[in-house]
């Protein structure tokens, strides 16, 4: 992990939507996600989880503040450069899997490479290797609707990994899965984390969040607190938001 120590760094980030009156979806957030870390983001609806995810995933730009993804400042980029950064540095995993319905599993995994201009043979080879890695060897020819939910999510994870991203961004990845399948998918995330991938997971289920090394609690567009989870111990200990540099705006006056 070369250029910078953090996969993502946010400082003083505000995101304001103008729907009649200005709405502060994020209201001053500082957060650093080190490379190789496993972070869960929790919070009730309307707390700014989605906005944070969009910013980290380079889908959106902040109204104020700085977002650095994979060592690059996102705020000043135009749409095209942002799209490229997104394709190269971020791997998305969604609650609803979001596979292309008419493409086979292999083609779905190979899709990001297509937009990067890689040739067909390279793409397919890499996609096949990743499918094997997520335990779907031999399923490459299946269409998404011929796969179970868990298998689909594995395809989505393989696709997220295909460009060697700086971080894996998962949005409720177990939300549409039954408990057992969900546990398997979470095990896969653990494995990927152990192998050195940076994982950011948005969830509202505590047992999912507790798999992470630390949990960022959002409330009303601010970081309420950051909780560290001890490896092997599910209970975890609470701490002030010391990881967030320059002190957390989110920790105070929010009870």
């Amino acid at each position: 992990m070369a250029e910078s120590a953090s996969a993502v760094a946010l400082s003083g980030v505000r995101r304001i939507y103008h729907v009649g009156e200005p709405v502060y979806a994020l209201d001053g957030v500082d957060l650093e996600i080190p490379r190789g870390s496993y972070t869960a983001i929790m919070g009730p609806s309307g707390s700014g989880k989605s906005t944070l995810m969009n910013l980290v995933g380079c889908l959106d730009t902040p109204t104020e503040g700085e977002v650095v993804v994979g060592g690059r400042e996102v705020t000043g980029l135009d749409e095209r450069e942002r799209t490229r950064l997104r394709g190269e540095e971020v791997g998305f995993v969604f609650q609803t899997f979001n596979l292309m319905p008419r493409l086979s599993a292999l083609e779905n995994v190979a899709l990001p490479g297509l937009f990067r201009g890689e040739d067909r043979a390279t793409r397919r080879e890499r996609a096949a290797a990743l499918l094997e890695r997520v335990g779907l060897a031999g399923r490459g020819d299946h269409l998404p609707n011929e796969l179970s939910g868990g298998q689909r999510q594995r395809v989505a994870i393989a696709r997220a990994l295909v460009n060697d991203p700086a971080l894996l961004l998962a949005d409720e990845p177990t939300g549409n899965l039954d408990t057992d399948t969900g546990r398997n998918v979470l095990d896969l995330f653990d494995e990927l984390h152990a192998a050195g991938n940076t994982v950011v997971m948005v969830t509202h289920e505590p047992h999912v969040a507790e798999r992470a090394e630390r949990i960022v609690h959002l409330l009303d567009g601010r970081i309420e607190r950051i909780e560290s989870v001890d490896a092997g111990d599910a209970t975890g200990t609470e701490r002030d938001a010391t990881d967030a540099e320059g002190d957390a705006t989110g920790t105070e006056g929010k009870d």
Partner: protein
Amino acid sequence: MRPVEFLRLSWRSIRGHRLRSTLTTLGVIIGVAAVIAFVTLGASLQAGVVGEFSPDDGRNVYGWAADPDVEGGPAAGAQPVFSEADLEAVEELEAVEAAYGYATVGTQAVSYDGEQVAQGDGLVASGPSYVREERLAEGRQFETGEREAVINPAAAGRFEENVSVGDELEVTLLGGATTTVEVVGITDTNEGLSPFEGFESAPRIYVPTDPYYAEQTDGLGIGGEGAGESARFLAIVIEAESADEEAIDRAREAAVGYLESDASDAGELMDDELAVTMQTSTELLAQLQDVLDLLQNFVVGIAAISLLVGSIGIANIMLVSVTERTREIGIMKAVGAQNRDVLGLFLAEAVILGVVGAIFGTALGLAAGYLGAWYIDLPLVYPLEYVALAIVVGVLVGIASGLYPAWRAARTDPIDALRYE
């Protein structure tokens, strides 16, 4: 991204909605098919009617009397007004070398050596010089007053044994009466010798008006006001002194002047509503061409409208498709698809629909055109440049109808698109 990959991915989407894509393409298919069919038919019609015919009627001018308001080909709306005496008088005119009538004698069949074939087109009755010397491959011109005929190679070849000069044919006239002709000459072409016949290839038998036309009118009582009066002709052919334009104009003026005056039988018979038209076949051909062109432009115009409707169909279905696939657009953008990639994908889809429509339309149109041409017995013509043009039109239709939908797809916001249900 490479063009081949675009096409591959777009083709996948099209195949995903087979029925919808087929119906969408149908609009373009019908439009292109209509254009191609009528262009093929038009080209065949032109080849059939006009043919390779390069008008070289030398000194001949063709005339008929009709209401000047009647539009149409040679002898359209013609009335039988020219009498034998008129022809003789015209021939006396200084500018005119010769004048004779033109008529067809209805027939049922022709027999040679006991073998009978149907011949509905009849005998072409005219003066000896109607079949010009240089058109004769064998034998000589027929003579007026004799039971003689010049036939063309198509007529000669209709029997098991080819008819040759000196043979005798038996002709069954309309009404059942039979008459005989002696073949004295064979022409070198199967095309018509004058615009009155039309220019297409057909078996033809040329005979003198006397006796064949005279006998027929006597028998049926047409052409003259009473029995005993000589036959009247619908059409006449006059020969100018030479083939240059001035001589032809002089002959034309003199003949029209005489025929429209009260001195002639024709002038007496014609009231103010009729006028004599005299034209060379070059002029007549040009008129015919105008009519054909007009017809073709009209039909191609209609077909172009159906093509427009077809492209609106593509545009419409592409818009539906963009909305329907909003989420897919979001996914592609999330994994790194640029706006131009999305634009290209949807544009490729529209172009594929357009081109596939154009290809099938062309095939269908050619089939329909050839079937039509074959059915009405015209020579087949292959307007290959139109096939190429049709493909280009397919591409253009695809681009024109796909551009706006594709642009809409390209500028879809990925955040909204991913949330889209």
